[in-house]
């Protein structure tokens, strides 16, 4: 039975990458996220699930300070990346976002060539000294995103000309190119067909070897398939957080059980 298989899924490491304590987010008057405490492990896939508007994307966007771009958003509490407060005055969000990459819901490649899409991050951060180094990063990133074989002969073609699934993998390659320590994925498969979804999910499992992956998803099956840890959000609260197998088969909170069994959401 699938449940048994889930139970075997345990995180490979217990080292904590991100520690969040007492995180509150307000959008103007609206209290969007209430007192969230989470430890996200290194080299682990962590899934955030919950009904629409529950705050899971909001919390994800706190982790690389993308909420800074929303004028009305206010974040309090502490979020530590490797023990360092990312909301500290001394932390530049620009550098933080290179370390904490992000993949968005809708594939959003730049309207430039495939090569330029991947090379953009390393280039603006000055990660390479020569064209050869940059070429190597582009190839490695595209390989990590399982896209190299499909596009190696047409790196000069525009990235927007690829299929939806390829575009999303290109976006993953683009995020991977800056050697992030954490990769945030905001419903990365919601705009993809089942085959492309399967490819991306497989990819997520491979990426886990390199860094910590946090994925927001509406699909509980997807959370169960790809993640080792699952957090369930409801109405701005973190209701339950634990091993994916435990959360799906033996939820401690009745709300989690209701959601997983389809009674709320």
């Amino acid at each position: 039975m699938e449940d048994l298989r889930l139970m075997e899924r345990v995180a490979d490491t217990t080292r904590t990458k991100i520690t969040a304590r007492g995180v509150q987010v307000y959008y103007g008057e609206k209290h969007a996220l209430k007192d969230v405490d989470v430890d996200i492990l290194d080299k682990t896939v962590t899934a955030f699930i919950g009904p629409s508007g529950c705050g899971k994307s909001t919390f994800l966007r706190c982790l690389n300070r993308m909420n800074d771009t929303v004028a009305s958003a206010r974040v309090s509490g502490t979020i530590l990346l490797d023990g360092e407060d990312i909301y500290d005055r001394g932390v530049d969000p620009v550098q933080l976002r290179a370390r904490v990459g992000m993949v968005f819901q809708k594939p959003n490649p730049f309207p430039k060539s495939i090569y330029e899409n991947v090379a953009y991050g390393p280039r603006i951060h000055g990660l390479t000294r020569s064209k050869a180094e940059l070429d190597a990063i582009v190839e490695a990133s595209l390989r990590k995103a399982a896209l190299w074989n499909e596009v190696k002969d047409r790196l000069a073609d525009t990235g927007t000309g690829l299929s939806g699934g390829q575009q999303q993998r290109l976006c993953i390659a683009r995020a991977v190119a800056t050697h992030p320590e954490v990769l945030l994925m905001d419903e990365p498969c919601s705009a993809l067909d089942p085959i492309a979804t399967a490819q991306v999910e497989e990819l997520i499992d491979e990426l886990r070897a390199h860094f910590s992956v946090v994925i927001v998803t509406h699909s509980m099956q997807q959370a169960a398939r790809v993640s080792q840890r699952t957090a369930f959000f409801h109405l701005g609260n973190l209701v339950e957080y634990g091993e994916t197998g435990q959360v799906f088969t033996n939820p401690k909170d009745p709300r989690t059980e209701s959601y997983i069994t389809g009674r709320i959401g």
Partner: protein
Amino acid sequence: MTDISAQAPQFDWKSSGFTARLQARRRSELWLRGLGLGAIGLALLMLAIMLTSIVGSALGALRQTHVTISVPIPADQVDPADPFSANWRRIMQNYVASLYPEASAAELRELGGILSKGAQFMVREAVVEDPSLIGQTLTISVPVSDPFDQLAKGFIKRETPENERRVNDAQIAAFDVLDKAGLISQPINWGLLTNGDSRFPELAGLRGAAVGTFYLLLTCFVLSFPVGIAAAIYLEEFAPKNRLSDFIEVNINNLAAVPSVVFGLLALAVFLNWFGLPRGAPIVGGLTLALMSLPTIIIATRAALKAVPPSIREAALGIGASHQQVIFHHVLPLAMPGILTGTILAMAQAIGETAPLLLIGMNAFITSIPTSPLESATTLPTQIFIWADSPERGFVSRTSAGIVVLLVALVAMNGLAIYLRRKFERRW
């Protein structure tokens, strides 16, 4: 749950009431289509009438009547070392007198009037260029003066009583003799494009005005394009949304609707009287029109920046691009087609602007071609204004010709706008 379909009354789709309503809807749609079609037809008709009347009138300026003369260049009156300062007026008078030995002084003046006043300068220029002509006879084609040009083109009728027309019978007789001798020709009037302005229609041209317009647009573009983009980027990307930015936005929108003559008064007070910039100079005109174009460019640029999908900004921010990098690497290039279109439309508006230029003295009578934006000049619209105001018959067709040149410039700019938009347009 109750079954709502059981309670709903059965609607009769074939009832006469429904059929009538259906027909009424169809009729009103036909009416709407007919009205739209009629409106477009009316607009096209007006355009056709305008173009026909302007082009028809401008055709009169397409050709200029010339007369071929063979002027002896007397060696005793022209210094080979300095042919420029010889008395060319006297030489021409002597030449005309030699053609009509029996004529009185008054008659000679009338007969000499067949030639354009510019003829002596053309002869002078030819000799200055080629001094070996001194002592020889120079054969040259020069424009006839405007009344004879109009006579040749049939705008002055021979049937009109002699005292009601600009040319008398003796002059017509002399002109006909020249015509019979095959000395009268009507070549294409290139002078209209290559000459500066003149009091004499046969010599007047648009080059000074065209160069003035070029300098004016250059100044206007150089000022309003970067300033407009910078202002739009600040307002769109950085400005906090508060009362002050709302106030600025409302004012920019209002500024775009301010009558242009107001900008002219402002320029007169500030640029000319306060800053002491040269009157009638294209740089002042450019400054004035830049003030006028700025709101248009800012509004177009903001709209173009707003139209860039937020996903592109997020993508760039997500990799760790700074706000400035997001703007310059992604947003601005994607907004460029819209910005360029808006700018060129603003320039097209500026090229036809007349009222503010009248107030800063760009409607002066200037015959020289400006060599810098600091020299007084006219522009195409003000030149058209000056010509439209002139009494000479020849300026009627030249006014229309000026309008045609302006329209061609406008169409070219709009064409450029379309080309640039197509070229830079990218899909995402």
